């Protein structure tokens, strides 16, 4: 009898020239996807969950996600924010199926187990049986069957959660450069929720993270940017990897005179791209509200991208669904003390973003083209040498340093 060799699991190796190549199988391997969730989302990282202004009073809740796990962000009776696993402690049904609302307690749809706003099990039907029969064993302890509570930090209205009790503080996790810029958008001013968009991207979640760290594509793919002078390759620009490549900053500078010299902007159009115009140029005419003439976008791994496009302030919550599917949940916000003109400007400029945004629609379309190619050519490699082969910060848009830095971080954490 001949011994049959056990089936070899195919060993995946990062290709040569590792710092400037990406293998396509990292976007298609389901086992790797699970390992990423364990390593990043459920590991010592802080995930964006929501904004405090979304849950204004006791019992207000929002359904959110940490990795692929659903959580409930809820304000409890004391005014504190809780982030609870959205999983009944009984049989594991999703407890809350609404995206937002207000409840005094949460009741599971399946067997009606009921939990308070801090996740404690208040009661369950027929604990003592019915007509003297059935029921839970006498020693069943309700206190041991509550919802899992995540560790929470709130800072200036933004709610973060982690599964890891030993994780460093949020401030340490973000690092000084990101913290400073998060505080620029969230300085402690009362926030005003403007609205949501949600979309399902048919691609691996890392494709989306890379997209938000890729200034090289911005003026090429997004003709809307160049057409209306919001972003051009000669724009002063900074691409700054932080925290060993975990996070990333993209900052561009627009003219201080953009608002007052609308005509100059429109004059440029002719030289850039025919004579395209918008009926309402306010959509592409930002006001320098932060006093630094900058558009700053922050990639905070593994959960969120904070975006300031002109006066449109948006949060892109990146929610992996499976190896080839990613939910993108957009939250648009302003400040409670915005005047009417600024509010109108934010709403108009929000048209650049979201699933059908003048700019952002291009990203969803191109990423939908990438996933099937990765699936068809898992052993192919991608080239990331634009701007050199290192991971230093650079002052140009024509660079892939943020992507290189990210994969250096990723490979180290994943042992690849």
């Amino acid at each position, binding site marked *: 009898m001949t011994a049959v060799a056990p089936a070899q699991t195919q060993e995946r190796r990062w290709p040569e020239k590792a710092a400037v190549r990406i293998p396509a199988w990292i976007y298609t391997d389901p086992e790797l996807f699970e390992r990423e969730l364990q390593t990043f989302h459920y590991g010592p990282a802080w995930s964006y969950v929501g904004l405090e202004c979304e849950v204004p009073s006791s019992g207000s809740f929002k359904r959110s996600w940490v990795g692929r796990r659903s959580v409930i962000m809820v304000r409890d009776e004391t005014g504190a924010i809780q982030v609870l696993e959205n999983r009944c402690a009984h049989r594991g049904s999703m407890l809350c199926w609404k995206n937002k609302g207000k409840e*005094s*307690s949460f*009741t599971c749809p399946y067997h*009606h187990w*009921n939990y*308070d706003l801090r996740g404690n099990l*208040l*009661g*369950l*039907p*027929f*604990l*003592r049986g*019915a007509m003297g029969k059935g029921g839970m064993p006498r020693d069943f302890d*309700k206190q041991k069957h509550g919802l899992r509570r995540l560790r929470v930090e709130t800072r200036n209205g933004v709610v973060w959660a982690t599964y890891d009790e030993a994780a460093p503080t949020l401030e340490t996790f973000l690092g000084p450069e990101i913290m400073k810029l998060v505080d620029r958008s969230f300085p402690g001013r009362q926030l005003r929720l403007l609205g949501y968009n949600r979309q399902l991207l048919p691609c691996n979640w890392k494709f989306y993270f890379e997209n938000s760290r890729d200034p090289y594509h911005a003026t090429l793919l997004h003709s809307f940017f160049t057409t209306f002078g919001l972003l051009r390759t000669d724009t002063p620009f900074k691409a700054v990897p932080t925290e060993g490549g975990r996070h990333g900053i993209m900052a561009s500078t627009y003219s201080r005179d953009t608002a007052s010299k609308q005509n100059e902007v429109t004059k440029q159009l002719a030289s850039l791209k025919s004579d395209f115009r918008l009926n309402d140029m306010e959509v592409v005419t930002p006001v320098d509200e932060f006093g630094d003439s900058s558009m700053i976008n922050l990639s905070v791994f593994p959960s969120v991208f904070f975006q300031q496009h002109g006066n449109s302030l948006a949060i892109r919550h990146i929610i992996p669904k499976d190896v080839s599917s990613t939910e993108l949940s957009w939250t648009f916000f302003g400040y409670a003390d915005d005047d009417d003109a600024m509010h109108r400007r934010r709403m108009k400029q929000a048209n650049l973003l979201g699933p059908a945004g003048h700019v952002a629609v291009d990203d969803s379309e191109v990423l939908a083209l990438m996933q099937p190619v990765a699936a068809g050519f898992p052993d192919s490699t991608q080239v990331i040498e634009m701007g050199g082969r290192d991971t230093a910060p650079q002052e140009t848009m024509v660079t892939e340093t943020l992507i290189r830095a990210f994969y250096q971080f990723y490979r180290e954490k994943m042992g690849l």
Partner: protein
Amino acid sequence: MAEWHRVASEDEIKEGEAFPVTAAGAAIAVYRLEGALYAIGNICPHQGDVLLSDGFVDGDKIECPMHQSCFEIRTGKVLGPPAQQDVPAYPVKVEDGAVFVRV
């Protein structure tokens, strides 16, 4: 106007048990506690579709069978969540062996 309604014979109401009745369209449960009779609303205000009389009499409290909210039998006062409202308490009297509740 509240009126007295005959709801039971006195010997039907026993210590440690809830006796469900309906009077003037209201669901009520009558209890005997240390000899005296009490009548309180019988629908748990938490979800509004459960009869407290299907629950568990624990001393001077009735415990809802669904989520174990407890109510004082003497007053209808809610003692713990998830229910947040009291159930009403009704006056009770006994005449010639018959129990009357004023609703």
